[in-house]
């Protein structure tokens, strides 16, 4: 094997890709060539490191130098200074990755990583996801070998059951039980499917695993195939994830080439193959029965359960369906044993959970923590708090099926059951932080707008009920709310929850109900006082010039598209509220910050 004196890891995740890591990679290539360093220094394109907010991220080993926001023009400095002369370019390092004496911290000393525990993400940002050898070098396919050569299907299932692993796709159903049901179901043909439809509109955990460590999912699905007696697997992945699709395609080809997919794997008589199926932009296809209809090439409409997929799934055959992150946990559980996994997490929720941390938070990105970590730890220690030291208002978990968690619950240890208890849910792992400039009524409206758009229309409570709720919310945010609206929303919400056919409708009212529960006074301000305390709802907004700050420069007059502003030069200006369309143009233009939303 070749020996390299340094490794340069460049993040190729979607976040960094968007902030320009592709060009950075190219520039590294040409700079290394220019200095004849190609045989001494190895460039590796990895998956997401988690700290997408400061991307593009580059880490140089053996020193472990963590360069952030690397621009094209920084590359030649890193090459000539660091890689040629051994002098780390300190001013390009991520601010929290160096000690005061300029010595480099190891990654697990950095605030962002300190409390994290990367199991599902163990290889993301560590290996090149397009090279199967790298996955194998990090114990990849070892669990598959162990299962096929040393364990029976029953032993495999029992081990997963004993670990206490619960599904990471949202509902938290015990994975081992589901495997057992599928294994016991009668059928000449069975399937193993992977839910990579990641529907939560503000989350990208599964995407990062697929992009950063595709083989872990392939390995786990193959193990599942052996355990339940299936010979064919399907990964249903969103077409909006081109990089994930590409890396999966490469990974499948490499696994076939290496004999780790296909006929007689590891020389046994077990055969298994995996194909990709692309979604086409329908949130409801994340629901298991709809997903299976979509794999069959039909409209992705849910059907009543039972029969459950374990009995009657794709093409009418017994089918095991798990989420991407659920699968990513399987190989380490098999290698380290169920007791090890049991030792992580809380009583009823074992292991870790990956969250996509977004919204009003400094370290937006991907984090993985043991179950039982508190929201406060995630937001203030790992997440680095809220920008401009603004006040925390709520955290949204569970996406369109979840709810908003207020400050009083910041110290709740997060697991499946505690989140349900406080009116939200774990969901698939979206975690959006909001400060006092976010309006809770508007957020509820935002999610309802989403569900109305995505409802497949099959059952009336969901199709008609959510629309009625949305209409009420729209009225409230437009200043036309009436007494009794809150009660109407609650009533409708409760009846939709109990009568809708699938999980989409059954959970759609949650964002509304939880915001009413915790932020009722904000609803009341909209309805009674026609006021949006957060200053978000346009119709309730007034744009005002503060006379004491206005110098009468006139810049706002020029900015206003509808001539709503008038005033003499050098004396305070005023806005004619009947003309103002609240576009905010004047606000940005005023050099004295005299114009405010009120």
């Amino acid at each position: 094997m070749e020996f390299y004196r340094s490794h340069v890891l460049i993040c190729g995740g979607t976040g960094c890709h968007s902030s320009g890591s592709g060009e950075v990679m190219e520039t590294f290539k040409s700079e290394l060539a220019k200095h004849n360093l190609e045989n001494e220094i190895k460039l590796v394109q990895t998956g997401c490191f988690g700290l997408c907010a400061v991307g593009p991220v580059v880490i140089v080993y053996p020193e472990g130098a963590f360069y952030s926001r690397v621009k094209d023009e920084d590359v030649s400095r890193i090459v000539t200074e660091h890689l040629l002369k051994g002098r780390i370019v300190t001013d390009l390092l991520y601010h929290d990755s160096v000690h005061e004496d300029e010595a480099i911290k190891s990654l697990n000393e950095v605030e962002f990583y300190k409390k994290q525990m990367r199991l599902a993400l163990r290889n993301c940002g560590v290996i090149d996801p397009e090279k199967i050898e790298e996955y194998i070098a990090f114990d990849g396919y070892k669990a598959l070998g162990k299962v096929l050569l040393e364990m029976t299907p029953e032993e495999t299932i029992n081990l997963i059951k004993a670990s206490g692993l619960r599904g990471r796709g949202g509902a938290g159903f015990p994975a081992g039980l589901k495997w057992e049901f599928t294994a016991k179901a009668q059928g000449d043909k069975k399937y193993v499917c992977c839910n990579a439809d990641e529907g939560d509109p503000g989350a990208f955990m599964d995407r990062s695993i697929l992009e950063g460590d595709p083989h872990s999912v392939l390995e786990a699905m193959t193990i599942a195939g052996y355990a339940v007696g299936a010979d064919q697997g399907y990964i249903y992945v969103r077409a909006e994830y081109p990089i994930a699709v590409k890396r999966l395609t490469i990974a499948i080809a490499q696994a076939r080439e290496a004999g780790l997919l296909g006929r007689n794997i590891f020389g046994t008589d077990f055969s298994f193959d995996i194909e990709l199926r692309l979604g086409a932009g329908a949130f409801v296809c994340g629901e298991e029965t709809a997903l299976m209809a979509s794999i069959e090439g039909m409209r992705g409409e849910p059907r009543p359960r039972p029969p459950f997929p374990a009995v009657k799934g794709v093409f009418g055959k017994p089918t095991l369906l798990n989420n991407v992150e659920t699968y990513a946990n399987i190989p380490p559980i098999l290698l380290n044993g169920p007791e090890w996994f049991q030792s992580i997490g809380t009583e009823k929720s074992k292991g870790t959970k990956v969250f996509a941390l977004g919204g009003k938070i400094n370290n937006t990105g991907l984090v993985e923590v043991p179950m039982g970590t508190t929201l406060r730890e995630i937001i203030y220690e790992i997440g680095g708090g809220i920008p401009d030291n603004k006040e925390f208002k709520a955290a949204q978990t569970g996406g369109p099926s979840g709810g908003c968690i207020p400050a009083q619950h910041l110290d709740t240890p997060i697991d499946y059951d505690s989140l349900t208890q406080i009116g939200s849910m774990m969901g698939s792992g979206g975690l959006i932080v909001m400060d006092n400039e976010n309006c809770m009524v508007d957020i509820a409206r935002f999610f309802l707008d989403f569900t109305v758009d995505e409802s497949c229309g099959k059952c009336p409570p969901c199709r008609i009920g959510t629309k009625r709720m949305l209409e009420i919310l729209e009225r409230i945010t437009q200043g036309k709310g009436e007494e009794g609206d809150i009660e109407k929303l609650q009533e409708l919400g409760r009846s939709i929850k109990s009568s809708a056919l699938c999980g989409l409708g059954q959970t759609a009212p949650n964002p509304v109900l939880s915001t009413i529960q915790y932020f009722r006074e904000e609803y009341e301000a909209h309805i009674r006082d026609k006021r949006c305390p957060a200053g978000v709802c346009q119709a309730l907004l007034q744009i005002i010039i503060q006379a004491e700050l206005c110098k009468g420069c006139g810049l706002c007059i020029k900015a206003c598209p509808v001539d709503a502003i008038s005033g003499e030069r050098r004396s305070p200006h005023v806005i004619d509220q009947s003309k103002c369309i609240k576009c905010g143009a004047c606000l940005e233009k005023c050099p004295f910050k005299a114009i405010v939303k009120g």
Partner: protein
Amino acid sequence: MSTSILQDNKEKFAELQRIIDEYKDKEGPLMLILHKAQELFGCLPVEVQEYIAESLDIPLTDIYGVATFYSQFTLQPKGKYTIGVCMGTACYVKGAQAVLDELSKEIGIKPGETSEDFVFTLEATRCLGACGLAPVIMINDDVYGRLVPSDIKGIVDKYRGR
């Protein structure tokens, strides 16, 4: 079947036939074929749906049902540049609505519409996976992040002249 589009696009339909031949023996081939057909034609006009219906021997209504169910399939041609404004939660709480409104104003079309000269299609999309850079828009394959409404004109102008 209207022959005009068949005549005009002989090569494309030959390619479509090749795609159908490649996929028709897979389990549940329809979505696979529709994805490829849309890549080929840019959209799924009714003539293309008819052609697939005949080749696979399934009713046109089934194909129409699938093509209209999924938001990524489109029956109308799109503009040269598709501008997707991320309306995922992370982007929304960081002001994506204002960015979308500004684009709408700048190009003069509503979300979901295509400009008359077929240069721009404006769409509201779900999470693009770049939440760290919220709010984010994507123009074909280019991603722009950390936007404020005043950035929009400059960005749109870059594509106008091309």
